[in-house]
C-alpha cells in the first residue's frame, strides 16, 4: 500500500480516458468495459494512496493538506463516474460519463501535485491526541466539517459544470444533426437541464455552509500555533467565489423564460470560474498561509514521535 504513488492512478485514469474516447469513436462495448476496468483499478490505487497518507499524517485526508484534499475531490469524482456509469448501463443507457469527468479528475490530480504535501499548520497543531485540548478538538471538528462541506460543494460545482457541457453538446447535435455525428449517447436535454438545476441548488448551500464554517475555523485557529488570517488569499478568494455563486443563483431563480442552452452556458462560465479560482488559489498560495512556517507531514511525525518518547520516559 505504501508503494502506491500518484503516478499509478494518474496513469490508470489517462488510459481509461483514452479507452473511453476510443469506445465512443468505435461504438465498442468491449472498449468501454476495459475503460471501466482501468478507472476502477485507478480508484483502488487512489484509495490505497489516500489511506496511506491519512495513516502517515494521523489525520483524515480532508484535513491533512491541500494535496490530499484535492485528491479526495478527485476520488469522489471517480466514484461518481463509476457509480453513474454502472447505473446508466443497467438501464441500457451507455452514457460516456468518463469522457467528461476523467479530464477534470486528471486536472485535480495535476493540481494536487502543484500544491505540495505540507500539512495545514492549524490542523497539525491538533494532531497530538495526548496534548489535544478542547479548543483543538473543536478546531479539528470544525475543520472536518468545513472541508467536507467544501469538497461536496465543489463536487456539485464540477458535476454542474460537466452536465452543462453535456447540455451544450447535446443541444448542438440536436440543432445540427447533419453537422454533429451522433457518436455520443447523452441524456435528454430535459434530464440534463434538471440535473444542472439540482447541482446548482445543492452546491450553493454546501458552499455557503462551507464558507460559514470556514469563518468559524479562522476564528478558532487564532488560538493555535498556525492561526489563519482573514486576509488569507484563499479566504478572500473563497469569499469572492461565494459572491459570484450568489449572483448566479439569483439570476437563475429570476430567469423564468431563459432557454436551457443559455442557462448551460452561464453555468459553464460561472462554475468554470469558481473551479479555476479555487484551484488557482490553491496552486498559487499552496493552501492556507499563516504565521509559522508550514510543517511537513514528516516533520509532524518526527515531532510527535519525539514527544511520545519523552512522555514514555517520564
Amino acid at each position, binding site marked *: 500500500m505504501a508503494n502506491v504513488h500518484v503516478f499509478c492512478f494518474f496513469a490508470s485514469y489517462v488510459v481509461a480516458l483514452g479507452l473511453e474516447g476510443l469506445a465512443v469513436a468505435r461504438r465498442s462495448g468491449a472498449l468501454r468495459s476495459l475503460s471501466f476496468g482501468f478507472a476502477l483499478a485507478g480508484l483502488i490505487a487512489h484509495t490505497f494512496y489516500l489511506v496511506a497518507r491519512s495513516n502517515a499524517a494521523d489525520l483524515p485526508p480532508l484535513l491533512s493538506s491541500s494535496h490530499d484534499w484535492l485528491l479526495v475531490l478527485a476520488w469522489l469524482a471517480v466514484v461518481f463516474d463509476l457509480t453513474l456509469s454502472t447505473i446508466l448501463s443497467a438501464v441500457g443507457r451507455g452514457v460516456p460519463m468518463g469522457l467528461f469527468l476523467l479530464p477534470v479528475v486528471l486536472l485535480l490530480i495535476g493540481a494536487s501535485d502543484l500544491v505540495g504535501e505540507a500539512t495545514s499548520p492549524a490542523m497539525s497543531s491538533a494532531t497530538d491526541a495526548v496534548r489535544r485540548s478542547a479548543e483543538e478538538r473543536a478546531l479539528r471538528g470544525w475543520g472536518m466539517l468545513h472541508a467536507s462541506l467544501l469538497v461536496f460543494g465543489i463536487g456539485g460545482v464540477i458535476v454542474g459544470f460537466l452536465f452543462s457541457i453535456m447540455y451544450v453538446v*447535446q*443541444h448542438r*447535435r*440536436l*440543432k445540427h*444533426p*447533419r453537422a454533429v*455525428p*451522433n457518436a455520443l449517447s*447523452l*441524456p*435528454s*436535454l*430535459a*434530464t440534463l437541464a*434538471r440535473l444542472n438545476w439540482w447541482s446548482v441548488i445543492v452546491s450553493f448551500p454546501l458552499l455557503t455552509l462551507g464558507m460559514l464554517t470556514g469563518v468559524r475555523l479562522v476564528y478558532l485557529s487564532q488560538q493555535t500555533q498556525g492561526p489563519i488570517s482573514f486576509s488569507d488569499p484563499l479566504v478572500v478568494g473563497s469569499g469572492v467565489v461565494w459572491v459570484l455563486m450568489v449572483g448566479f443563483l439569483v439570476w437563475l431563480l429570476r430567469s423564468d*423564460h431563459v*432557454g*436551457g*442552452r*443559455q442557462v448551460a452556458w452561464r453555468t459553464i462560465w460561472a462554475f468554470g470560474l469558481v473551479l479555476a479560482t479555487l484551484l488557482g488559489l490553491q496552486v498559487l498560495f499552496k493552501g492556507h498561509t499563516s504565521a509559522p512556517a508550514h510543517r511537513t507531514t514528516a516533520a509532524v511525525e518526527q515531532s510527535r514521535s519525539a514527544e511520545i518518547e519523552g512522555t514514555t520516559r517520564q
Partner: protein
Amino acid sequence: MNVQVAYCSHQSTPLALRERLAFASVEQLTRAYETLRATFPDSEHVVLSTCNRVEIYAAQDDTSAALTQEQVAEFLSRFHGVSQNDLAGALLWQKGPEAVRHLFEVASSLDSMVLGEPQIVSQVKEAYRVAQDNDACGPLTHALFQGAMRVSARVRSETALAVGRVSVASVAVGEFGKSIFDRFADKTVLVIGAGEMAEETLRYLKDEGARGIVVVNRSLERAQRLAADWNGTARPFEELDTWLSSADVIVSTTGSTEPIVDVARFQAARAASDGKPVFILDLATPRDFAPAVADIDENVFLYDIEALQATCEQNRRQRVREIERAHRIIDEETERFLHDIYHKATGPIISQLRAGWRKVCEDELDQLFAKFDRLDPEERQGIERSVERIVNKLLHPPLEALRDEARKGTPHGLLDALKRLFFTGQ
C-alpha cells in the same frame, strides 16, 4: 421480358429536386397515368412516389415498345415543368434483370433511408393498387409487383433486417425526440395531416407514453377518424395557429405542395407560447415547414426527412451483415423470378409445338390403323409408344435450346424462328 425503371431517390437526388418530381396526390397520379397511357400505349406502368423516392416502372411484351431513359425524362420534365438539365444526372435508369432487382431491393427496404423500415412495403403495395385502379398494370407488372411483395416478406422473415428501430418515424422519435424530452406523457402532440406517416409516428409516440394528441387536418372527417384511432382530439384546420403555440411535439405529414408553416407564422405562434422546447417532425414531401423555422429560437428543434439521413446511415452501417444476407436472397429471387417469367414466355410456344406434332401423329396413326384393322390392341399400343418416342426425340434439341436461351433472358429470336419454322401462317 422488357422492364425498365427510371428513378431518383434520397441516395442520388437532393430533397429540393425530389419535391419537384413527387406525385403528391392521387389526382396528380391519375393525371400522370393518363399521360403515360397516351404517350406509351403499349407499355404497362407503375409509379412509386414516396418521401424518399420517385420511381416509374414500365414493362412491355414487345421489345420494340421498350421505353428509353430519354423518353421517361421527357415525360417527367413536361409533367412537372422541370428542365431536362435539372434532371440530367439525377434520374437513374435500370432495365431488364437490374430493374427487377432494384424493385426487390426497394420493396425489401434495402434502399430505404432507414434500413429495414416496414413502411416502404405498404407504399409499394399502395403504388401497385393505384396503378391497378388506373388500369396501368398488365400481366408483367402484376407478376413483378406480386413478386416484390413475396421477396420483401422473405427478407423480413429470414434476416434481422427489421429488428429494432426501422422507420423514419421511429428513428425520429427514438433518436431525436427522446434526446429532447425525457418523457412524453405530459406533452401535447399536434398532428398536422392524417396520412399514413402520421399514424406511423403516433404509434411510436404512443409507445413512449404520449397521451395528449390533437389532430388538425383540412378534412375534419379524416382528422376525427385518426383521432378516434389514437384516443386523441380532432380540431378544425382554422385552429392550427393556436395549437402550434401550445404543442410540445408537432408531426406534420400533409400532402401540401407548398409549406404550410412559414417563419412569420411560427414566430407568431412562439410569441404566444412560453418559449418551451418544441420538437417538430416534418415528414412531408414537399416540406410543410419552411427550413428557416429551425432558426427562430434555440428551443425549436425541426427535423425534415433529409435531416434524418445521417442517423439512417449509421443504422445502415450497423446492419451490413444483414444487408449481405438480404442481397443473397434478392439475387436468388431475382433469378427465380426471371426464370419463371421466361418460362411463361416460352411455355405457350412449347405447348403449341407439342400439340401440333401430336395432332399430326394422331392423324397419321388413325390412317394407319384404318388400313391395318387386324392389329390387336397390344400391337397398336406398341406403335403409338414408338411414334411418341420419335416425336419426343425430334423435339428434344429445339426445346432444350429454347430452355438454355430462356435462362439468359426472353429468347425472342429463337421464339420467332420456331414460330416461322413450325407455325407459318398462324
